[in-house]
């Protein structure tokens, strides 16, 4: 925006006004009504010129602001067809984050569900063996019992070997699966920057709109906040500790409900 340009134009206009005003007083005092009338005509033209120039500058500023939004759209269509924009880019990236986190969660749960039975059966078998082992220590086993125990321990040790190999492999895979956080983190950082850009562009547009209001003398009534009385859902709270109207944790939920008699 050529701020200095518009200031100079204002200065110029004011000087013009002052000169005309002085001449006007002079003509009127000398009863030169026709010339006075022509002067007023000139004044009006100067004012119109000035408005014209200001509007021209604002229009250029508006055009630049709109170009900065980088929105590819056919605005004449109803509804407008948007083929590309920073917001669209940000939305696509957020959808990617949803997809990636869902897939990582599913894969992790798959692995856990696969190894849980292994851990359980190892535990059960070792408990049964322990009972037999206690009997062995108390010398309560018969020769046949001992033979059974012998084979069973042998089998168990093999089971342990295989089982713990699978457990370790799966645990390692689960750690690797958490790598999604790196990818989603990068994508989210990019989204933050896109959204910040759009905010800057909007503020720019607001500034120009303010100047249009000044030039055209239009004022608008800002509407008060929506008071429909509907309690809006806000999703997970990220600053629960800073808000008085939000609970942080199950204990506070339970306290609130019991204080109301539920």
């Amino acid at each position, binding site marked *: 925006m050529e701020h200095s340009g518009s200031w100079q134009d204002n200065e110029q206009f004011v000087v013009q006004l002052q000169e005309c005003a002085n001449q006007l007083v002079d003509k009127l005092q000398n009863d030169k009504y026709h010339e006075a009338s022509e002067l007023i005509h000139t004044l009006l033209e100067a004012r119109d010129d000035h408005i014209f120039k200001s509007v021209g500058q604002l229009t250029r500023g508006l055009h630049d602001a709109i170009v900065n939004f980088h929105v590819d759209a056919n605005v004449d269509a109803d509804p407008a067809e948007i083929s590309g924009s920073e917001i669209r880019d940000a939305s696509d990236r957020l959808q990617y984050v949803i997809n990636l986190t869902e897939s990582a969660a599913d894969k992790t*749960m798959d692995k856990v569900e696969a190894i849980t039975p292994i851990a359980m059966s190892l535990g059960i078998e070792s408990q049964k063996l322990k009972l037999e082992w206690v009997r062995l220590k108390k010398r309560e086993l018969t020769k046949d019992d001992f033979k059974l125990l012998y084979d069973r321990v042998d089998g168990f040790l093999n089971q342990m070997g295989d089982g713990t190999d699978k457990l370790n492999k799966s645990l390692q895979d689960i750690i690797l699966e958490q790598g999604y956080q790196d990818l989603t983190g990068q994508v989210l950082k990019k989204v933050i920057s896109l959204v910040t850009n759009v905010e800057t562009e909007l503020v720019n547009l607001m500034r120009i709109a303010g100047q249009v209001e000044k030039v055209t003398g239009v004022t608008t009534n800002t509407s008060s906040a929506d008071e429909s009385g509907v*309690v809006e*859902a806000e999703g*997970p709270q990220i600053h629960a500790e800073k808000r008085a109207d939000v609970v942080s944790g199950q204990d506070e939920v339970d306290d*609130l409900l019991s204080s*109301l008699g539920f």
Partner: protein
Amino acid sequence: MKILIVDDFSTMRRIIKNLLRDLGFTNTQEADDGTTALPMLRAGDFDFLVTDWNMPGMTGIELLKHVRADAKLVSLPVLMVTAEAKRDQIVEAAQAGVNGYVVKPFTAQVLKEKIEKIFERVDK
């Protein structure tokens, strides 16, 4: 006991399903929104509803209100499991007739306690 789990995120439905299974409740079905859940509740003979709040078509609070307004479903025990933590919302849910309210993230212990509490009351 037949349980309907309603949440628009499949990962959360899976987690709740697993936790319920660990608690011995194996007869579960799922819905991804209030709009799909309500007909299932009306048609099936569910004994328990576990629902999220924030869902695109019909929210959990709307689902709860529909359930309480339906003669067939009016006394269906409903547990809300949700990230919504505003006091106003908790009060609204309680006034609409929810039987329990669990905030995310939650533990298996909390879920177990709330379910036990609900059915302890229902039996009495």
